């Protein structure tokens, strides 16, 4: 139809960076060898794979041997929960992958505040003497709200001291899925203070179905996929060399450009937010005003059916999400928006706009204009 596409859904998926694609290509064709094979060319592939893991580990300040490569963040999360089990604590704004995994165990799900932020005291109040795992995402995928992870981590350390003093030998670990924050926030494990970390490549211009679970030394993982004993026996299956090499390149680039890119997106997002709120004063912006991902804008138009807006925008080349992509597809209201107390009429009018590499000042401003036009057209149609 010749409409220029403006992509505003970087939190759902990102295009593969050309440099990542180039790095991956040889491993599909000439460097196809199984890293476990005994001859020299395969050995080279093994070295390249190990080097890629080394690069990834360095990006988060960890050792390569502490990483388990998986086929996506959902698998990493499942592996973390299955390994630690016991009583688990998480929050009501967490991703479905975490909530579903938590429901497999004895669990307590705590409430977030109205900005989608989980207070450390609320989490710690849910911790019992037999609690083994706390799982809180670094940043919320719908609202972009960044969680006080370091604060939670130090509370977990205190809890450990208390248990030690009380003679309680039950370990307690903090897991975080940082897939939504990586590339915009620091994901250095010692600075985050977590014990387990999930990150995927698909949101940082790397390949999909590619992630790792990092576990601090001393945290015992239980393999969920058994077989040939790859990944130190923790995740069997022939190594996905191309994807892991791509992940390494992607996380390297993300870390190199993180400061510049997050500042750029922060400015763009604020411009877009200002543009929309000025033209549509009844708009409600959700998520924490300060602790929010730079490229994230969650905005609701009360009384409007956001799904209609998505289709109207799609017809004009502007690709946006309603609430969260998963929830939208199932035709149900987002659990996150319910959790932060948005009324149905506000929640149903919510768009999630997430900026990234494809965003420029020009196309973002243009998208803003189109959103305003389509909003006004829809308002006129329903006589609002």
């Amino acid at each position, binding site marked *: *139809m010749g409409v220029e596409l403006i992509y505003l859904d970087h939190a759902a998926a990102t295009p593969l960076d050309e440099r990542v694609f180039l790095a991956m290509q040889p491993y599909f064709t000439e460097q196809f060898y199984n890293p476990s094979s005994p001859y020299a060319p395969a050995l080279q592939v093994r070295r390249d794979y190990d080097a890629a893991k080394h690069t990834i580990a360095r990006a988060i300040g960890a050792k390569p041997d502490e990483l388990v490569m998986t086929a996506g963040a959902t698998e990493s999360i499942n592996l973390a929960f299955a390994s630690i089990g016991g009583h688990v604590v998480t929050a009501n704004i967490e991703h479905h992958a975490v909530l579903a995994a938590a429901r497999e165990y004895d669990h307590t799900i705590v409430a977030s505040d109205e900005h989608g932020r989980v207070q450390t005291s609320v989490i710690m109040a849910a911790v019992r003497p037999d609690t083994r795992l706390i799982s809180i995402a670094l940043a919320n995928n719908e609202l972009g709200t960044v969680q006080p992870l370091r604060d939670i981590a130090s509370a977990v350390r205190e809890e450990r001291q208390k248990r030690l003093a009380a003679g309680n030998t039950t370990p307690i670990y903090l897991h975080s899925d940082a897939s939504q924050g990586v590339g915009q926030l620091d994901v250095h494990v010692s600075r985050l203070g977590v014990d387990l970390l999930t990150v995927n490549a698909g949101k940082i211009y790397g390949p999909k179905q590619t992630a790792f679970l990092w576990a601090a030394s001393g945290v015992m993982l239980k393999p969920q996929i058994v077989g040939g004993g790859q990944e130190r026996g923790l995740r069997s299956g022939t190594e996905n060399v191309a994807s892991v090499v791509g992940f390494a390149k992607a996380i390297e680039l993300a870390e190199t450009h993180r400061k510049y890119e997050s500042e750029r997106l922060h400015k763009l997002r604020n411009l877009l937010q200002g543009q929309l709120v000025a033209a549509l004063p009844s708009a409600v912006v959700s998520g924490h005003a300060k602790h929010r991902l730079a490229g994230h804008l969650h905005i609701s138009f009360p009384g409007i059916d956001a*799904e*209609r807006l998505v*289709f109207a925008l*799609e*017809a004009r080349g502007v690709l946006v999400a309603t609430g969260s992509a998963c929830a939208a597809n199932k*035709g149900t209201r987002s659990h996150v928006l319910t959790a932060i107390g948005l009324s149905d009429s506000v929640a149903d009018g919510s768009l999630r706009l997430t900026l990234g590499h494809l965003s420029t000042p020009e196309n973002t401003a243009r998208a803003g204009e189109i959103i305003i036009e389509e909003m006004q057209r829809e308002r006129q149609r329903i006589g609002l």
Partner: protein
Amino acid sequence: MTKVYVGMSGGVDSSLTAALLKEQGYDVTGVYMKNWTQDLPGMKCPWADDLADAKRVAVQLGIDFKVYDFENEYKHKVVEYMIDEYKLGRTPNPDIMCNQEVKFKLFLEAALEDGADMIATGHYARVKDGVLLQAVDTNKDQTYFLYRVTGKALAKTLFPLGEYTKPTVRKMAEERGLFTAAKKDSQGICFVGKVGIREFLSQYVQQIPGEIIDKKSGKILGMHDGAIFYTLGQRHGLDIGGGLPYYVVGKDMAKNEVYVTTDLNDATLWKDDIRLASVHWINQAPQLGIYQIRIRHRAPLVSAALTYDGENVVLKLNDEQRAIASGQSVVIYDGEICLGGGIIV
């Protein structure tokens, strides 16, 4: 302005229906009817995509859009009916039930309640003054599925597509740039989906092995996994192999036996008289006489003499017809008028 609620399934036919009515100056609201679908791991349920497509087209047309949830009613009136009929050894038609019970009853009632003056669907059929007429595209005509709808309901119904052929409909949808213009037509029974009727039924009825018996010789040819899964005239899926193909000529539900033959001329396979029960007339009952009948969707019309036997209708055919299974519907026409019909006893 006349308010019309259009049943929009997310397919090209109902999309164009809404577009045409809007162009004709009606105040159009699109409605997606959520019917019952199975939600099993490993089975992709297409309704969310269809709902999104229907809504996309509504947004494109700038019309209101609603979702009516008929899941429970649909399950009782259509799905359970179908399973029960199969259990009785009959071959029911769920699409006919869906039109009778859901689209032209529940949907009509709900739409009127919500302020509609009329409803419309993307069926290939025509209505004139509450009289149901065959579609101009005789190849696509869907009146077979509509014979159990009441004249009263039809008087409040619009079928704009009845005037066009399917290729024209696709072309018109393309010309209007409708999102669904190139979408593939749906196949088979909606809630059964791609798994097929056999797999669908086997979730609800126990598979009990029984004998497949040669009708002529009385010889046991093999075993089947439940007489319920077999229909008169059926050739495939018998698994007794070798030589000439076998056809199902009868079954005994009580004994769980299926009778087959290689003789295509077997008297059971061919009938020249049909007895119909559960007779429904769209308007008034026709007088005795010669009419045209259709024994399955898209089957050619054949002539038959209609007589009554109490509540039942007896049809005497000029030529014998093959595979007339009980439970199937026979629809009766007077020229282009669809009068009604009944279910083969």
